[in-house]
């Protein structure tokens, strides 16, 4: 009885009305700051020409139209490299980069998390340290190495580095640590299953949320990849780059440009909406212990 009362008591005590109001207020202010620019993007994309040039400009569209999207598709059709080619480039590099990454990073993560071998910890520490610097620091030397490997101006220049994405390996390893119980693996090994078999048939099905997270992170990076310095040929450039070219076409294309922005942001947002719960589950084990 006493315990019950303590619990009830706690709920009342720890959640003061003033605190609730303050938190709600702060959250609302921050939410408005985050959300308004997004609203403006969408509003711009739906504005007919006369509203885009209205003075003073209105924040919210009055007579929404899909004309800007139509203009965007017309502009796409006029491009000398067909737009289907740009889309193919982005899809091809995204798929190749993402699945290669998922496969080799999860295999490595399994060995680092579940097999004790000399050097394993040191290797993981090195990989983890690389989370501490931004990859653009090595952009120049990367370029030189890729020219040495003759990878410049090929799809490989985009695909192969994506395989080595560090955050993906880190999240996968941490998730395996926390959600694949050693006892299950131990009994599989006693039954004579090889490590590779254990990895593929036992560990991998248990870490589905982490797969999805790796796929989404890698896909987001590749989808948002604009003009790569590693690619010269127009025919090999990404969808994002091509869209950027349209939007850079000056003020006459303001409407189409807003439509393009909406199109580009809709894809990663949609993907996140579908996979949110899995990503959050993966992040549950993202913590760093020393």
């Amino acid at each position, binding site marked *: 009885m006493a315990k019950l009362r303590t*619990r009830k008591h706690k709920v009342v005590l720890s959640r003061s009305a003033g605190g609730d109001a303050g938190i709600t207020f702060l959250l609302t202010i921050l939410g408005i700051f985050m959300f308004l620019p997004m609203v403006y993007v969408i509003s711009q994309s739906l504005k007919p020409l006369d509203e885009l040039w209205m003075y003073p*400009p209105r924040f919210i569209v009055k007579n929404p139209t899909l004309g800007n999207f139509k203009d965007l598709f017309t502009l796409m059709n006029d491009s000398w490299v067909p737009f289907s080619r740009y889309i193919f480039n982005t899809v091809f590099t995204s798929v190749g980069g993402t699945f290669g990454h998922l496969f080799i990073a999860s295999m490595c993560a399994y060995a680092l998390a579940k097999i004790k*071998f000399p050097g394993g910890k040191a290797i993981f520490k090195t990989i983890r340290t690389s989370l501490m610097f931004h990859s653009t620091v090595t952009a120049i030397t990367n370029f030189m190495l890729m020219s040495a490997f003759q990878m410049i101006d090929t799809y490989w220049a985009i695909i192969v580095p994506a395989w080595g994405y560090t955050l993906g390996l880190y999240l996968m390893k941490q998730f395996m640590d926390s959600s694949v119980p050693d006892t299950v693996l131990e009994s599989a090994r006693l039954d004579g299953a090889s490590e590779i078999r254990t990895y593929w048939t036992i560990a991998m099905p248990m870490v589905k949320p982490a797969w999805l997270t790796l796929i989404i992170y890698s896909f987001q990076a590749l989808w948002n990849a604009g003009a790569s310095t590693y690619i010269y040929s127009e025919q090999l450039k990404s969808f994002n780059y091509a869209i950027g070219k349209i939007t850079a076409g000056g003020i006459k294309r303001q409407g189409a440009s807003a439509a393009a922005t909406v199109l580009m942001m809709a894809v990663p947002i949609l993907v996140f*909406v579908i996979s949110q719960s899995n990503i959050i589950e993966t992040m549950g084990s993202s913590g760093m212990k020393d």
Partner: protein
Amino acid sequence: MSKKSAEYQAVARKDITYRQWIWKEMKRNKVAYLMIAPYVLVFTLFTIVPVLLSFVISFTDFNMLQFPNFVGLENYINLFFADDIFLISAKNTLIFAVIVGPVSYLMSFLVAWFINELSPKIRSVVTLIFYAPAISGQVYMIWGTLFSADSQGWVNATLLETGIIESPISWFKDADYVMPLCIVVALWTSLGTSFLSFIAGLQGVDRSLYEAGAVDGVKNRWQELWYITLPSMKPQLMFGAIMAITNSFGFGGVVTALAGLPSVDYAAHTIMNHLEDYGGARYEIGYSSAIAVVLFLVMIGANTVVSKVISKVGS
């Protein structure tokens, strides 16, 4: 007895040396090396080798055309004593990092904490609102439209209409405004991976700890936060800090996109932009490698220091 020797006690043998034992262990775990080989190869080629190569090249005058000469510390000396623009960019990077790093970290944590007690459906909607700017690619360009330099821009028009200003301000081309604006945009896009990690960490805190805390006299949510939530989330706090620091020091892409390269009077020029300028535009590879090495060391240094501080929290 140290922890290490206790760990190895089970396998301690007298008949072979430590080195022989390691070799035996390595042979026994052949398959593990096989499994890590593909990833480690890619990681070595595209992360480790480029870092090492940057160090080596930073001591030369390599320019992509002629064979490089060894020049010792000349690049570094020029960087710190002759390149005024580098010093401006270092100052700007520091300002960015000191403001954007902690503020985005706090914002990520506070928002995650605020929404933690909402119902799952509402929570996922709010998560999306805060996370969307971080994943939407070039969407931050909308700030350029909102703060466009002519009276057609929404901010200028609103300020003109209300009589606060008399002539339009060219926001991103004005040395007084460009830096604060870039900071705002950086914060806007900064609720990323660490934010998600905090949300997950908060949901992972053992509920029974709160009940035990209430019995032990935890009075309000602030005490609950300090005595229970934060200590249980230390690993996530550490991970989030590293993400925030790395991103805030690597800031530069947004500046180029919104304010141009270089930004007006170098007012928002960061080390990253300086690197872009010398490496991408001028092909002074030796010199830009020195810039990259400095930035690399600063990032690793800041991360190490902050990790040490966080690991001390609550212990």
